[in-house]
């Protein structure tokens, strides 16, 4: 599934042993994917390979993180892997939806790749339909986290210190029986499947998600990536001396491919 980039000079396949794999779920508002774009763009990560898979709709374009004419001509496809060895970080970006009935095989292949490449843990960025929140979830933070038992031991305490809120379970049969609780992540794409599979296979996985709706999801992406940063500290959040608050939003670099998200310019003849 994973094909390393040929960087020339006979370089061996990249080693991800002990790395944190950061990846998005294709979910409501594409928030996870937008947040991943911000991480790759800001940390100027190097592409180290891609996934050769028949599970995602094919697409191709030129480099979405181009900053100048020279680096704008590298082809980019639907599932690519970037790495930053200095932070022991490997990032998977998924750029197209799943083909019907193919999301399960993709999850299985992905998790077996995670195990074979010996990644220490997986962090999945996702989102869930805001309109499905219950009365309590409507108040307070729209951000939630989940940890597999394998990772709970290592970082569960840290989440409590950060005052993070764990994703609540909902009644399996609401109105009939409130005691059976299940995990329900509407609009979360493969989030629930990946999480439950990781729980049963002993993989260290954390899910970070935001409740949101379809629309302009750029602000949601910033909120989610700042949430991630509270834990992983990927960039320094500088404290602004003028109003004594830290606003790391300005330190995330928006990639050049985020232009024209809502259509072209208007024809002058319209006016």
């Amino acid at each position, binding site marked *: 599934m994973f094909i390393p980039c040929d960087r020339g000079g006979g370089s061996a396949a990249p080693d991800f042993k002990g790395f944190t794999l950061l990846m998005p779920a294709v979910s409501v*508002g594409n928030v996870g994917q937008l947040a991943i774009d911000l991480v790759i763009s800001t940390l100027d990560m190097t592409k180290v390979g891609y996934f050769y898979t028949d599970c995602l*709709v*094919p697409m191709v374009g030129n480099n979405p993180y181009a900053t100048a004419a020279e680096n704008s001509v590298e082809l980019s496809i639907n599932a690519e892997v970037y790495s930053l060895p200095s932070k022991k970080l490997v990032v998977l970006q998924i750029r197209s939806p799943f083909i019907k009935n193919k999301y399960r095989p993709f999850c299985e292949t992905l998790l077996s790749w995670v195990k074979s490449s010996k990644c220490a843990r997986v962090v999945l960025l996702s989102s869930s339909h805001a309109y499905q929140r219950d009365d309590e979830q409507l108040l307070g933070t729209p951000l939630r986290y989940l940890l597999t038992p394998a990772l709970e031991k290592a970082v569960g305490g840290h989440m409590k210190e950060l005052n993070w809120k764990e994703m609540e379970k909902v009644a399996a049969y609401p109105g009939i029986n409130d005691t059976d609780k299940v995990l329900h992540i509407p609009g979360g794409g493969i989030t629930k499947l990946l999480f439950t599979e990781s729980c049963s296979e002993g993989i260290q996985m954390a899910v970070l998600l935001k409740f949101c709706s379809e629309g302009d999801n750029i602000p949601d992406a910033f909120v989610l990536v700042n949430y991630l940063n509270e834990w992983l500290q990927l960039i320094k959040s500088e404290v602004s001396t003028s109003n004594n608050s830290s606003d790391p939003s300005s330190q995330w670099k928006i990639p050049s491919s985020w*232009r024209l998200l809502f259509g072209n310019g208007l*024809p002058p003849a319209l006016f």
Partner: protein
Amino acid sequence: MATFFGEVVVAPSRAGLDEEEEAREETPEDREIRREIEKKRFQQRGEIREREIQVLWSCAEESLVCSRFIVAIGRNAAAFLSSFILDSVCWEVIGVVKLWNEWCRTSSSTNVLPTDSFCLFYRLISDPTVLLCQCSCYVAEDQQFQWLEKVFGSIQKKGLQVTILSTCPVADYKTQESTLTLVSPFLKALKTKEFQEQVCCPLLEQPNIVRDLPAA
């Protein structure tokens, strides 16, 4: 999402995942029903399973040696080849793709009309390593990978150069100005880093992308 009349509808999500597909766990009853439907479709379609693609070659060789492969995808690109490149003197038909999906069905016949949906392979008689494909039918997203593997699996790649010709509506082109003021038609290209020759037109800028079979 509540509409003007007050009823709640589920808005389609850009994320693209079919919710029902994810939530439904298949019971043994569901599995049995699905099996019966598959069997019925199998019988109706005859020799091939519904979504399977068949690549039929008329030449005897097991794999074709190919140095240049030109693929025209879509009716416009296929018509371009018919009008300017193909003729019965220099090119011979050597293969056909047989497939079915909700949008079209192709047959194994090589005698096609321009208005038919077809996918044919031609070989240059004077240089048999030059192959050409005219694919005017729509290849569904779950068949694209299959098409790729079956077609390229039959080709022996010797310093292979692949050229893909395709068209997109101007209205889909993302640009700062309005597309109404753009001079069209215009050409844009994408190339791999292994392609060292001069490209005859500007490269496709972000945020524009290519989808479906040309992307595959």
